[in-house]
């Protein structure tokens, strides 16, 4: 039985979540490994939430927001870009591989792009294997 990654996906209400919804209503088949959490903006995703997802058992975290320039709240996705970039640098020092955390942009009309990204991160995390629990819990 091959390893099934558990991936938590934070998706912004205005673009990414709607793109994900479009993928669904269009009957696009994508990997089922992403557990969706709808947030109002990718800029709302506190780095603590990403780390908590890993602490609670996620093998990867996906954050999807509006394309740069298109944020419903003007600059939220820029904030997300800065925070997640710095978080990935810090997590690398903790031994969390770069491919486990992904920030990307999906518009409300891009159901196919959503499907592509979900499939990509699922396969990349599958290759990496489960995130080490350090021999505990």
């Amino acid at each position, binding site marked *: 039985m091959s390893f099934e990654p558990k991936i938590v996906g934070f998706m912004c209400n205005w673009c990414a979540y709607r793109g994900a919804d479009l993928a669904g209503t269009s009957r696009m088949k994508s990997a089922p490994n992403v557990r969706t959490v709808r947030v109002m903006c990718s800029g709302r995703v*506190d*780095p*603590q939430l*990403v*780390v*908590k997802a*890993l*602490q609670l058992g996620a093998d990867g975290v996906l954050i999807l927001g509006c394309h*740069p320039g298109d944020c419903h709240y003007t*600059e939220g996705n*820029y*904030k997300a*870009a*800065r*925070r997640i*970039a*710095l*978080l990935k*640098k*810090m997590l690398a*020092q*903790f*031994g*969390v591989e770069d491919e486990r955390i992904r920030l990307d942009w999906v518009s409300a009309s891009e159901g196919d792009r959503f499907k592509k990204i979900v499939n990509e991160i699922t396969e990349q995390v599958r290759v990496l294997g489960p*995130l*080490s629990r*350090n*021999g505990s819990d």
Partner: protein
Amino acid sequence: MAKLKLAVYWSASCGGCDVAILDIAERILDVVAIADVVFWPVAIDFKYKDVEAMADNSIDVCLFNGAVRNSEQDHIAKLLRAKSKALLAYGSCACFGGIPSLGNFNCRDEAFQRAYIEAPTNVNTDHLSPQTLTKVPEGELELPEYWDTVLALNQVVAVEYFLPGCPPPVELTNKIVDALASEQLPPPGTIIASDKSLCEECDRIKEDKKITRIYRPHEITPDRERCLLEQGLICIGPATRGGCGQRCIKANMPCRGCFGPPPRVIDQGAKMLSALASIYEANDEGAIARMLTEVVDPAGTFNRFVMSTSMLQRKRL
């Protein structure tokens, strides 16, 4: 009033907290007037067997400083827990893991390899390193088992009180003396510090939180009146519990976070990272890349004192 029984222990510690207790200066006479110190390895000649011989719960308060990283410290933490009515985690190491918990970026094998084999000044051709058990002609010698992961005190035993700081300031240590003298100990779970972040007690002028460059402390001489974070230094104040009297700020140095996270913040490191990235002006990939080069060691800088109690606790094994 019968004299209280007080104990002090140093675990994975630099010894600074034992010195900090003595910062109360002549008030030590108030302490010995109301309490017998029944165990204090650095200061008094009682041994572990004296503690083992005590009845359970016979020590009124034990000030435990230092983190827990080997089997001996684990054993004594549990022993003192059994013999004490109240345990007080004294200092950042006992509260959060402290500086020793930066060892959580390594593991025992890596640490031993570096210290005993690789370090440039070593002369160790037989590649010897400490063993838990060693047979010698006279018998077997035992050393404590060295752990991969450094823990805070409350990750090993239940703890009633927390006094953070590296080391705790004398004003807060005096609060313990007052509590003992008046026989009014605070409710269990009390953290003897402020409930607000350091920014609340910082005197500096705070204007717009927008920075275009991050400086390392040696790169600039900061202005003494303005907020240090606004000048581009990584001041952990926004993500740090107050109560220290802004000692570092007054010395024109940015806060390093030794009081741990403020209330309702679980992970001080992630929260400070969030705050810093939020106020940095960078809306394109080039500017973000530049920001990343300016934060040389995010994991160590943001989690300097709190690795044990951070969400990830250690580098993945």
